[in-house]
């Protein structure tokens, strides 16, 4: 690729709809060509009660109870919470602590799956959505257990619940999928555009948005074409192609690209009259909400140099990672790096006994060569090259923040250098020639600042 020695995006005649700065990592989307395939049931499913942001769900089944595919097995605990549904026919083996991808053991429902379990969802009550009021619609969305499938796992009904003081004019549908390697959203857009349109209509009704813009990066022309073929005649939904650049799929970046509006620091998209939803979320919502089903499966990209059969799979939620990897074919090697999500923001799994949850968009497996190459890199002191400043999409100064983090000046990072605006996209660390783990330092700093703020808010505990 031709590299200009100057930031091309500064010059208006070069720019198309996008945001400033950012990076262009190798895409490595080798799985994009094949169709989504279905994965069989594992013999045992593990369903953590906290797969979403908010309060964990409350189990409504007991050990020994039989469940059918699609049956709710845990209910939402309050507004910021969602229910969990059985992914397969079987019997509840136990409700106990199980390892999670983040490390700590979490309360989970374990289901032993019957060998004869069918793919048919047998617990469903089809609904007439047009008869529902917006409030009932939001309740129906919560009942599906839907969360943001792009990786955030924020309850979808909560995201679409807009306080009365905000008027939403536009629903932005995020089909950028800017993370390298991942192709699950790409394929959903290409294979299920009709379901996506149903989902978009539901979200527009729930939020009161008059129009919807689907943002898709220009490396997925087939997806854009498939969606354009299904657009409604009234013109309320449009497909907008944006340049391929990381992190184009970040909410604030996409709003800037499509509407030219910047969401102010510390504010949400609804402050500028916008709600953003992921295409995967809306496609599946369009499938399961009219059918009255719960969220029992999702599309997961399983790829990476160490995978023999890379591809996108419909994976039942709760399937152990080990089963997925065996299905996709991982060679028997002495070491590997398993990443949940994309390579820029995904998290390395500490155990293969953890399940695929609602938040897992990809499973990326690197082999010995990659691990070795990353480990061989030497960390230097910051040479103040300014690459991170030219990469940060939020206009922060990661160079200065990194130096402050090394000196543990966390309060200064928060007060003068806007660390709270960092959404941990990892661009600074990606470009850093000194190999300083900047974004990791920032995560630590943000956590410490959150704890300090919480301590200040609740002083003098007895």
């Amino acid at each position, binding site marked *: 690729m031709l*590299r200009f*020695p100057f930031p091309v995006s500064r010059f208006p005649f070069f720019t198309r709809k996008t945001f400033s700065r950012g*990076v262009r*990592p190798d895409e490595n989307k080798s799985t994009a060509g094949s169709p989504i395939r279905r994965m069989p049931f594992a013999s045992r499913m593990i369903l953590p009660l906290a797969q979403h942001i908010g309060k964990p769900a409350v189990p409504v089944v007991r050990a020994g109870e039989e469940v059918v595919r699609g049956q709710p097995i845990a209910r939402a605990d309050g507004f910021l919470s969602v229910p969990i549904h059985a992914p397969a026919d079987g019997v509840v083996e136990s409700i106990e602590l199980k390892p999670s991808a983040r490390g700590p053991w979490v309360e989970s429902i374990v289901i032993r799956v019957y060998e004869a379990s069918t793919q048919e969802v047998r617990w469903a009550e089809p609904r007439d959505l047009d008869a529902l009021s917006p409030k009932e619609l939001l309740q129906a969305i919560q009942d599906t257990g839907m969360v943001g499938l792009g990786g955030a796992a924020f309850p979808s009904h909560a995201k679409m619940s807009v306080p009365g003081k905000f008027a939403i004019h536009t629903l932005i549908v995020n089909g950028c999928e800017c993370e*390298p390697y991942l192709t699950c959203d790409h394929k959903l857009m290409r294979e299920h555009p009709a379901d996506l349109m149903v989902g978009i209509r539901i979200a527009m009704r729930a939020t009161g948005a008059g129009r919807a813009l689907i943002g898709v990066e220009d490396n997925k022309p087939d997806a854009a074409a498939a969606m354009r073929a299904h657009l409604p005649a009234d013109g309320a939904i449009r497909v907008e192609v944006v340049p391929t650049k990381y992190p184009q799929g970040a909410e*604030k970046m996409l709003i800037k690209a499509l509407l*030219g509006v*910047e*969401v*102010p*620091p510390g*504010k949400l998209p609804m402050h500028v*009259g916008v709600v953003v939803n992921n295409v995967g979320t809306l496609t599946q919502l369009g499938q399961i909400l009219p059918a009255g089903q719960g969220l029992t499966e999702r599309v997961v990209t399983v790829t990476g140099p160490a995978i023999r059969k890379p591809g996108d799979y419909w994976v039942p939620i709760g399937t152990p990672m080990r089963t997925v990897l065996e299905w996709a074919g991982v060679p028997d090697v*002495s*070491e*590997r*790096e398993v*990443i949940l999500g994309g*390579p*820029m*923001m*995904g*998290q*390395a799994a500490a*155990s*293969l006994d953890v399940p695929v949850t609602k938040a897992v968009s990809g499973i*990326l497996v*690197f082999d010995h060569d990659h691990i070795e190459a*990353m480990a061989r*890199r*030497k960390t*230097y*002191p910051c*040479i*103040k*090259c*300014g*690459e*991170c*400043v030219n990469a940060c*999409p*939020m*206009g*922060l*100064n990661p*160079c*200065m923040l990194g130096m402050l983090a090394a000196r543990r000046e966390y309060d200064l990072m928060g007060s003068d*250098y806007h660390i709270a*605006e960092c959404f941990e996209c*990892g661009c600074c*660390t*990606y*470009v*850093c*020639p*000194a*190999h300083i*783990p900047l*974004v*990791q330092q920032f995560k630590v700093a943000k956590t410490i600042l959150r704890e300090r703020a919480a301590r200040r808010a609740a002083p003098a505990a007895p």
Partner: protein
Amino acid sequence: MSQPPRLELRPAPHVAKGASVERIMLHVVLALLPICAFAVWQYGLSALALILTVTAACLLTERLCNRLSGSASTLSDWSATITGLLLALTLPPSFPLWMGVVAGFAAIALGKALFGGIGCNVFNPALVGRAFVQAAFPVAITTWAPAYFPSRFAEFIPTTLTAPLMTPPDIGVWVKGQAVDGFTGATPLARWKFENQVAEFGDLLSGVAAASVGETSALLVLVCGLYLAARRCLDWRIPAAILGSAMLVALLFHLAEPGRYPPPYFVLLSGGLVLGAVFMATDMVTSPVTPRGVWLYGILIGVTTVMIRYFGSLPEGIMYAILLGNALTPLIDQVTQPRVFGAGKGRKA
């Protein structure tokens, strides 16, 4: 499977651009080599010996400082090599080798190691070394030898091999014996400043004027700089700001009083302006990181250079202008923080 596979755990991001400090530094070294080669073509054995000696002094000092501080060798990051090459290019070709060793030692020990090594220095180490010997050996550093003298590949300039701690001999007689046309023993800048003579455009480009080892090849320096900019090892905005602002200021002065102030091409091509702008001021460690700060820093250096040349007591000003810019870099960075996304003028909602 007897033993479960080891799972690698490292923080995100799990991919990298592939840039590294040593690769950037190596590219700078590669970009400096053509300039060094051209200098050797012009000045022969003396230039070669000076470049090798100064670079060796820098590397040895770096290693010595590593040993004293108990850290691992940092020679492999190439930064000391860059300092050595750059420093040699700013010295006169007739500079005694032992003084070159002093310059190299001062550059690394005082300019870099005292601050904590790579990434921690405030001033460009090569310029610290040059400033040190300018103060210590004022005569030697303003003694110039002609380029392209016939016997340059057979013999050293007499001053080159001066014994350590000795005063170098006067080379005036030797220079006359070389019979090089048009050589005056003073740099174009000095001739303009003290005799009000403006050198011809062609003389400045061809490199026959008296100058430091790497100063005469402005065109070559620019080409090498372009290579580095294309490799993203150099911030093109800094030389652009320096050269642009220096030209603009020079043009204004020239238009105001053409008889007294030289035309802009003279300001651009005489002395070390291009070498300094492309290779010295762009030292990443000692230049600002913010986009606005980079422009401010470049303009500051360009304007200061012309001001020193026109109104200071020295004929050349680029060195002190860059050192001043280095000193102001933390302040410039502080006051030119980038605009946070969504804050201030960008907000329309």
